[in-house]
């Protein structure tokens, strides 16, 4: 029989340390829904998504009950919509967003991702119109998430797209001003976007993917922090080993859920994304893990090193626990979703420059940062360009999800509620990057891209 100690450990992880499977995300290809008549295309999209994912929510709930593992979100990601938009002879492509939203509503999933465009090297038919439509699409829908890939290590950075995205972020925030600027929280700008990411808001179903797959995102910062608290580590090697062992256990659970969900839904298993994704709940913070390693407060000198260790150990521990690992896999640092990060910002220990450094070693990038409402589109573009440069040079995914808090200034707070949390408005650097951003063009691919 399984040992008592192990059984109690698992139950304790779930009951007291916030262990959960963060999301089961069904990736659905929309390639076969392409139609030059946008209304016909929207009908096909709605029908296909509803047909494929009709049992998704129920299956998630069944697994939760039988195995006793909380599965927090059931979500859907689809083929980047810009590909479908390119075929339609119309500018009114936000109809696609409305169709996706309707499907999500019918199925009861909380988010649907893929209102996206991949423009790292240039704009194809549909890309331009899609990016232009993002603010309205996000303002008029509830569950649609949007992402745009504007750079990659292979292609360099498309600065024209960077410029457009700065404007899109600010406009989205403005259009959702009465709703805490929530639209901007559903918009991610990527460099080196991954095609099988199950986490929102950046999930989309890549064009190289199968018709339909199940991807699972695990979580569990609370479990890692508790493990560090319970075991006195004599040196940093022991810390890394302990994180690895814990990540292994967390990922095994994700693998079990992924296998089970894929079998029950008769859909191939894609990947497990072994991420430490924090929530605003007490004890579910990545910042607190770093503090448990011996930092007085997240953001002090030493934070980047501690985060690098954590990110790497999570991957090493998780990779053996699952047959296919993918997505973003590592430690997320979304400020407003992490009680420890919010605390650090309020105490002035953590600012945007330190966060930027941390994004060079975390799994994604500047995430859920609330910035002053009067920030210009050019400054947002410049933040995106900086972040994309870190990703491009280091061959890693980076992203920017900032929320301009319209009508608020540094020191105020923006409260989203729920999983998105609340964020203090953060100060930005002084100076104006306008001329640089308005140059446009492309930053050439770095030497690292010439691997062949």
């Amino acid at each position, binding site marked *: *029989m*399984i*040992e*008592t100690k*192990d*059984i*109690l*450990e*698992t*139950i304790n992880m779930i*009951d007291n340390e916030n262990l959960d499977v963060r999301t089961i995300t069904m990736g659905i290809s929309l390639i076969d829904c392409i139609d030059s008549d946008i209304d016909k295309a929207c009908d096909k999209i709605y029908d296909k998504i509803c047909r494929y994912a009709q049992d998704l929510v129920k299956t998630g709930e069944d697994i939760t*009950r*039988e*195995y*006793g*593992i909380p599965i927090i979100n059931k979500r859907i990601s689809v083929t980047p919509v810009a590909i479908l938009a390119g075929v339609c002879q119309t500018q009114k492509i936000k109809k696609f967003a409305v169709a996706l939203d309707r499907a999500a509503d019918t199925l009861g999933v909380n988010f649907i991702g893929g209102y996206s465009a991949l423009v790292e090297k240039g704009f194809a038919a549909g890309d331009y119109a899609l990016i232009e439509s993002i603010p309205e699409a996000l303002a008029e829908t509830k569950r649609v998430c949007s992402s745009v890939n504007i750079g990659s290590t292979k292609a360099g950075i498309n600065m024209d797209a960077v410029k457009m995205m700065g404007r899109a972020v600010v406009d989205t925030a403005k259009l959702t001003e009465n709703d805490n600027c929530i639209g901007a929280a559903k918009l991610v700008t990527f460099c080196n976007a991954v095609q099988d990411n199950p986490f929102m808001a950046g999930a989309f179903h890549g064009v190289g993917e199968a018709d339909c797959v199940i991807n699972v995102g695990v979580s569990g910062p609370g479990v890692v922090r508790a493990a560090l608290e319970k075991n006195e580590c004599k040196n940093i090697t022991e810390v890394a080993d302990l994180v690895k062992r814990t990540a292994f*256990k967390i990922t*095994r*659970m994700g*693998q*079990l859920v992924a296998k089970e969900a894929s079998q029950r839904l008769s859909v191939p298993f894609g990947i497990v994304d072994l991420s430490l994704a924090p929530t605003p709940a007490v004890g579910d913070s990545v910042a607190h893990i770093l503090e448990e390693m011996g930092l007085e407060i997240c953001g002090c000198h030493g934070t980047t090193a501690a985060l690098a260790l954590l990110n790497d150990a999570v991957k090493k521990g998780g990779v053996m626990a699952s047959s296919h690992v993918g997505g973003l896999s590592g430690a997320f640092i979304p400020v407003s979703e992490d009680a420890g990060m919010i605390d650090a910002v309020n105490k002035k220990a953590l600012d945007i420059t330190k966060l930027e450094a941390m994004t060079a070693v975390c799994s994604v990038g500047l995430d859920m940062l609330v910035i002053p409402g009067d920030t210009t589109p050019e400054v947002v573009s410049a933040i995106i360009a900086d972040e994309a440069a870190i990703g491009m040079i280091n061959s890693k995914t980076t992203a920017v999800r900032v929320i301009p808090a319209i009508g608020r200034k540094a020191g105020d707070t923006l409260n989203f509620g729920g999983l998105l949390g609340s964020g203090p408005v953060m100060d930005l650097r002084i100076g104006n990057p306008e001329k640089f951003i308005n140059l446009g063009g492309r930053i050439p691919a770095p030497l690292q891209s010439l691997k062949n």
Partner: protein
Amino acid sequence: MKAVITVIGKDSVGILSKVSTACADVGVNIIEVTQSVLQDMFAMIMLAQIDKATVAFDDLVKKLDALGSENNLKIHVMHEDIFNSMHRI
């Protein structure tokens, strides 16, 4: 399918009997039991065969959860695979 039933709480008279009676009532066969009392905390783990249960898994979970709340105990019923996959390679 086998389920692991765990009962955790303050020790009191008759816990084992209450839980096993509740199981027997719905045709759940208990295969193995281990229990330990640490100070005054009671922890009991049962491995149960539930193929012949007369109620759905979901109802069994609810029934035992209710029994737990009545007696100030925390009772979990979970598929054994979660423990196997987490703790065995």
